[in-house]
């Protein structure tokens, strides 16, 4: 075999080698080795996709809709998305040029970052944040500027922190609203300040709004970032069906934004994905047309479980900001003196409750854990009992 001109230590590229495995990978092994686990560690609904949506997908297969759709997704679905967004946000997205159907928000995120950033560009990401943001920016040749948030500020980034961290190389800001893992929702006032900052620094916004339908209390507290004055032309919004309609396994989402950006993303999408799964597109259309009742039923259930979990955590001494959206609570575990990882690991070993250590979502997540309340009422109650027992032992021993 001829000698390689480059001395390669690994067959895998250094760019990929430099990405760490997702922080909770070793948890899977731990969990696999224990029984009777109650998991608050999930990031998806416990509901099964509503039957009418599943049935629409089955019907599409029966009818033989098994071919590619147009690269951007079926026009039928894009029209429904456009109508849906018009009703909800007031923004009118042209179904032919301003909407791209993606394989979940994960793909949309990858496309957006790659379409928008040059090598060496910086992307601001308020953290704690979803774990994929960093690696995706890294793979696109950019770097992430993490903006710390704190419990005191309800995990909402301050403008001072944004201003102190912006540089000439900053190209975009990635906003996940409502936020995974904290459940924080930035209100209109907060978003307007960010919008001003965006204009002042000539940035682009990637708005990950996958949890937009999971809002508790005042439903109007969620604002579609691109609906703010001047933001349409600067924002690409990522959304999907996974969380609202319990469709995580279908892998279907969409990106909306100005024609130029969507066209750029479509170029990447057509060479990597061709098109999102056709059967999932039929299911998604049914979700938009006839999914509202199911969504509201699930929302009612989440709302009750949220109260149960948040009150429960506060009662056992784990302080918790009221999460206004998504289905996560993000309590502080600082009173125990444990790090997030040892808390999660010990809790799993001693009480068989799985939670996600907050530090996997960024340095500001240290001292917190993420607990998901997309779990049954019985499981949440039992989990709180067990966590309470654990916290008491830890607090007494330290």
């Amino acid at each position, binding site marked *: 075999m001829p000698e390689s001109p480059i001395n390669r230590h690994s067959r895998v590229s250094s760019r990929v080698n430099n990405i760490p495995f997702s922080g*909770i990978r070793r948890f899977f092994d731990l969990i696999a080795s224990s029984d009777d686990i109650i998991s608050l*560690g999930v990031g*998806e609904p416990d509901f*099964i996709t509503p039957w009418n949506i599943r049935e629409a997908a089955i019907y599409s297969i029966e009818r033989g809709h098994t071919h590619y759709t147009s690269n951007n997704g079926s026009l039928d679905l894009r029209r429904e998305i456009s109508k849906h967004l018009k009703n909800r946000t007031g923004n009118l997205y042209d179904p032919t040029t301003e909407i791209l159907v993606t394989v979940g928000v994960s793909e949309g995120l990858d496309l957006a970052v790659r379409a928008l950033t040059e090598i060496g560009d910086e992307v601001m990401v308020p953290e704690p944040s979803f774990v994929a943001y960093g690696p995706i920016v890294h793979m696109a040749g950019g770097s992430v500027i993490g903006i710390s948030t704190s419990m005191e500020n309800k995990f909402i980034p301050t403008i001072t922190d944004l201003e102190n961290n912006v540089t000439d190389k900053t190209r975009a800001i990635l906003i996940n609203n409502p936020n995974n893992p904290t459940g924080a929702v930035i209100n209109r006032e907060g978003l307007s300040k960010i919008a001003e900052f965006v204009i002042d620094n000539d940035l682009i916004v990637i708005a990950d709004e996958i949890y937009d339908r999971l809002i508790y209390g005042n439903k109007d507290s969620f604002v579609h970032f691109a609906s703010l004055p001047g933001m349409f032309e600067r924002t690409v919004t990522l959304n999907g069906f996974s969380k609202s309609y319990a469709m995580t396994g279908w892998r279907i989402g969409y990106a909306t934004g100005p024609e130029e950006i969507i066209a750029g993303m479509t170029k990447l999408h057509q060479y990597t994905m061709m098109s999102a799964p056709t059967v999932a597109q039929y299911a998604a259309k049914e979700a938009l047309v006839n999914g509202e009742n199911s969504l509201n039923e699930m929302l009612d259930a989440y709302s009750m479980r949220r*109260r149960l979990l948040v009150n429960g955590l506060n009662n056992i001494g784990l302080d918790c900001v009221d999460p206004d959206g998504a289905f996560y609570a993000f309590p502080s575990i600082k009173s125990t003196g444990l790090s997030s990882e040892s808390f999660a690991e010990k809790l799993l070993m001693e009480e068989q409750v799985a939670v*996600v250590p907050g530090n996997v979502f960024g340095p500001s997540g240290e001292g917190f854990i993420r607990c998901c309340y997309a779990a049954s009422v019985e499981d949440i109650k039992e989990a709180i009992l067990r966590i309470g027992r654990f916290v008491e032992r830890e607090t007494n021993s330290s």
Partner: protein
Amino acid sequence: MEEILRILEKNGRIDASQISELTGLKEEEIRELITKAEKDNIILSYKAQIDWGKLGDGPVLAIIEVKIAPQRDVGFDAIAMRIARFPEVKSMHLVSGDYDLSAQVEGKNMYDISNFVTNTLSTIDAVQGTSTRFVLKRYKEDGTLIGGDDMAEGRLPVSL
């Protein structure tokens, strides 16, 4: 009130303290609302839904279409209530279409039901005709699937 009723509709055994945990309402307030709903016949009853088939031969169920003659002043109501009061009748509705009442009738066996139809139901004056359809298999009752619930299998214990 509606929130409490929706919870009770799904689980009649849940108590006020559990409802309080879910809704954030005070236990005392919940108890009062429930008592009032019971008094006002908004809550009609609490009972268990049982799959008798699991214990061997379950009861026989028939859906009986009944054509009746309406009566002056009371329309269908008087005769309908007269039929509905028989314990064999598990549920009954006035319906639109070719006939008037749709009654679900339960018996130990086919003979029980035919006995009820021929000797009791058909002999009521206002009853002009009946048509009996025996239930062959139950799939779903009162919103509950029988013998085929969806299971959320395969959800990963941890995902981000």
